């Protein structure tokens, strides 16, 4: 049982605040992904949980034990590093056995665990090799096997797939998900790749400028972004935003059409809609098609609405050419609203 609780954790490097008061609880066996652009503090947060970085303030609890003053080796964690950190002077076997030897486990136990995890990661035929004789994907497998062999309560992963090529990344992603679910560990996984985050996570914590903007299930993060940043960061292409002005009780003027919305006592709100949540129908937003990109299943049309860019993902049967005038009707239940000042969802 290893629930991770991060309480009020902040970190400064000199005058730079890398993390502002982070609160986050990760349940036992949960797969939590920290997602954000580079420099958002996600790796710093992971390294604080690992004990490789000391927080400027706050507490870290793992499995009901406060660990922020403990060295990494006393935290019951294992970690997979971005560059794998597979020791070059040791064979694959000794790499996987490294942590077990440090724990002074009996040789028979070490042999058993190394063999088991090597089989799990399909590297049993590489056990006698050195890191220099392995491909990137194989090294990655060794790094994961080394972590799994520890049978840790918590596995921390720092962009583990970012150095693999696209095809291998897809394959490893599916495999990681299976292996980690079976291992019943609590996982924190750092990535800047939203597809990776969506496909792996039980919950995603979207981070921006040292803060967690939203921590929720992948679908929730996608459908109901807690802030404008989340909507524009998650989804490819991202959400469309159009400034709206109040017309009356619950009615808003969005680029010339009237849309039902909340009545939050404000005069201005940002209207938001995902590109796939619009239909071509009369009475919608007046859009001029600029770029048409057929993608097979769908066609991505970049248009101009009221002088601003607006993207629509349309059925590929619909014939659109650059310069065409379109009328795009947003699906009412998919419309979201954001406060233009606080950028929070309304």
């Amino acid at each position: 049982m290893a629930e991770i609780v991060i309480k009020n954790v902040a970190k400064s490097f000199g005058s730079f605040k890398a993390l502002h008061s982070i609160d986050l609880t990760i349940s036992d066996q949960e797969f939590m992904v920290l997602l954000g652009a580079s420099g958002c503090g996600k790796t710093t947060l992971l390294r604080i949980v690992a004990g490789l970085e000391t927080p400027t303030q706050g507490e870290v609890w793992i499995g009901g034990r406060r660990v922020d003053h403990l060295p990494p080796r006393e935290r019951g964690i294992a970690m997979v590093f971005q560059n794998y950190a597979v020791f070059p002077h040791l064979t694959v076997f000794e790499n996987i056995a490294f942590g077990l030897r440090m724990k002074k486990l009996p040789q028979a136990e070490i042999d058993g665990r190394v063999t088991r995890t090597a089989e799990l990661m399909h590297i049993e035929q590489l056990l006698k090799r050195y890191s220099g004789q392995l491909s990137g994907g194989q090294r990655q497998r060794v790094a994961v096997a080394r972590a799994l062999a520890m049978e840790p309560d918590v596995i921390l992963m720092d962009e583990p797939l970012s150095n693999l090529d696209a095809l291998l990344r897809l394959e490893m992603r599916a495999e990681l998900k299976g292996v980690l679910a079976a291992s019943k560990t609590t996982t924190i996984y750092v990535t800047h790749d939203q597809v990776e985050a969506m496909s792996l996570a039980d919950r995603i914590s979207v981070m921006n400028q040292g803060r967690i903007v939203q921590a929720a299930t992948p679908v929730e993060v996608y459908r109901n972004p807690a802030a404008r940043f989340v909507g524009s960061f998650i989804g490819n292409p991202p959400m469309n935003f159009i400034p709206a002005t109040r017309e009356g009780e619950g009615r808003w003027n969005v680029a010339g059409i009237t849309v039902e919305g909340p009545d939050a006592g404000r005069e201005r709100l940002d209207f938001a809609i995902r590109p796939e949540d619009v239909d071509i129908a009369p009475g919608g937003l007046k859009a001029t098609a600029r770029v048409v990109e057929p993608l097979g299943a769908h066609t991505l049309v970049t248009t101009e609405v009221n002088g601003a860019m607006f993207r629509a993902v349309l059925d590929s049967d619909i014939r659109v050419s650059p310069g065409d005038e379109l009328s795009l009707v947003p699906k009412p239940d998919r419309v979201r609203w954001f406060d233009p000042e606080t950028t929070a969802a309304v």
Partner: protein
Amino acid sequence: MTPRFLPYALLLPATLFLLVFFLYPFVQIAVLAFSGPEGFTLQHVQTMTSHWKFGTALTNTIVLAAIVVPIQLVMALSMASIVTKLKTGRSAILYIFTIPLGLSDLAAGIIWLAIFEQSGFLNSVLYGLGIIEQPILFLGYQNIWVIFLAVILAEVWRATAIVMVILVSGMGLIPREYYEAAEVFGASPWKRFVKITLPMLRPSLQSALILRTLAAFEVFAVVVALGGTTLPVLMGETFQWQFALQDRNVASAYALVILAISIASTLFFLRVLRVPKEARI
């Protein structure tokens, strides 16, 4: 000229230089050591080995190296470990540590002579403190071990920094991620040193040890400054035979002995600290 041959062409002058000024004298010395009026002879080698100072000189040289080099290795490893962990002031400390490297070995010997001789600093201090009533003759033939100790001190003081500089640069090449991985997987600071630093430092250790051991076998000026001929070493005997006894043949035989133990120790370090190709970073 094709680019393929350019590197060789550029290396040619240096190679020729080495051949002319190292290989040629070496062959000459070998010829001198083994030739007499009637051609090949082992007589000079016999003269050398049967002289009472040969055994002592050989033992002294090897024992000196066997004491000095490990002390320097341990000190340099500790110093390098500390220096690499420094965040600020690192270069300042490196400069200070490397000051003795700027001295010739003779100057280093004279500095320590000034400390240990009868009217030296050590006697003045001991006398000034009232610990002794009259100056002691430290560096006399009655207590050779004091000369031995002084030589060890001078050598350690003078030449540890070169080992440290090599190790500092070697440690800088080890990626930090390996230490972090070792830390996460349960290695204490000492275990990290033994399991990560030492094995990954092998190439630098190799260079440093070969360099230092060879220099230790050639120890001369420090010994002469502190002990004259009271403490015979191989290099000192070579000098004696060449210039005092005017026998170039025996001097050459001595030079070959130094060469032989140098080659042996180099091969030893190359073998022991070898990093298999597949296990390199």
